[in-house]
């Protein structure tokens, strides 16, 4: 493309216009500059670029390794902390359970005592009441006896016959029992 040097072309003639790759007159030039280039690139690479990149890569892999190890350690620590927490939680739970049980027992005891007392009172009261009822019933039976005696005497009198008081009483008593 950028070949404005027609002088050189004219000097080479028509035959060399064909394939510049086979123009042997340019070979020393190309080889010389190629060797210069290769040596320069080799020194740039081996003295500066490659050691630098390899250190960066090694450092990075080292850092990554360290970070992974640190993360592993932290993970272990976190696990330990979790275990401690779980332990504390379990202890607290057990304590709470105990306290609850104790309280329940105390309450039960109080309740039992109160119940017993109330039962005793109720029993006493019931006995008293029974006694009163028995008295009342006695009273009532007595009254019924009197009424029955009187009624029986009156009936017998009304029937026109006199009745011995003692006989009537005996009969009424016998009836009442029956």
């Amino acid at each position, binding site marked *: *493309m*950028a*070949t404005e*040097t*027609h*002088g*050189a*072309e004219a*000097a080479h003639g*028509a035959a060399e*216009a*064909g*394939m*510049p*790759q*086979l*123009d042997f*007159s*340019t*070979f*020393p*030039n*190309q*080889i*010389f*500059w*190629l*060797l*210069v*280039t*290769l040596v*320069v*690139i*080799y020194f*740039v*690479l*081996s003295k*500066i*670029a*490659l050691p*630098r*990149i*390899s*250190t*960066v*890569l090694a*450092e*990075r892999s080292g*850092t990554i390794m360290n970070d992974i190890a640190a993360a592993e350690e932290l993970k272990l620590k976190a696990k330990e902390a979790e275990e401690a927490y779980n332990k504390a939680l379990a202890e607290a739970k057990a304590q709470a359970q105990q306290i609850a049980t104790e309280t329940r027992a105390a309450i039960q005891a109080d309740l039992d005592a109160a119940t017993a007392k109330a039962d005793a009172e109720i029993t006493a009261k019931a006995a008293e009441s029974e006694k009163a009822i028995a008295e009342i019933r006695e009273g009532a039976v007595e009254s019924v006896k009197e009424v029955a005696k009187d009624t029986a005497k009156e009936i017998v009198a009304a029937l026109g016959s006199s009745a011995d008081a003692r006989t009537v009483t005996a009969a009424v008593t016998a009836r009442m029992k029956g």
Partner: protein
Amino acid sequence: MATEAHGSESSLVFHPMDQFKVTPLFGDGAVHWYTITNVTLWMALSIVGVILLLVVGSRGRAMVPSKGQSVAELTYGFVYKMIEDVTGKDAVKYFPYVMTLFIFIVFSNMLGLLPLSFTTTSHIAVTGVLALLVFLFVTILGFAKNGTKFLALFWVSSAPMAVRPLLAVIELISYFVRPVSHSIRLAGNMMAGHAVIKVFAGFAAIAAISPVSVLAITAMYGLEILVAFIQAYVFTILTCVYLKDALHPVH
């Protein structure tokens, strides 16, 4: 393009090879070995590219890489993994040589794809020297490391005794053809791609065909970018394969 020499015959003139001409940068005249030519310019630009990518790109030395540093590290890792996979772990000490070859070829190929540029790797002189360097390096290293055992490379011990001499001759020929194919592959690929693009560009002179021509150039350009990289890769990986032969010459 320079139509004054042949342009009288027809309106369609192709000079696909003109782009490969080696010319002095300053003034005209003969090209001596020390003359500063377009070869010098484009090789210097490839050095600049290498420095920009691998030295300036990695200057941050950051733990979390920037874009440039990522590319530099990617290139490093690419070639390092290649030599480690193909040649083996004990060849890692030849990594700078292989890296030099790869980075030079890749930059020359890519810079050659710029319009109006000169492709240094399209010249058989350049690739021939590269391939000969590899060939001599591998041969000398093979003999230095293994002594006469290196010759076992040519003596196929798994073949029947009767055909071994014949195979040895074939292996020997194939060994000496290596630098030829190694260099011509690279130069030929580069030359072919650029010449084809230039031929398509020549067709653009006809108004009716020029849209097709532009499309074809675009497509070829995409292919050439791929080829530029793949040829550098292939050159490097073949260097690794040859290096493996030198280090472990068991056939």
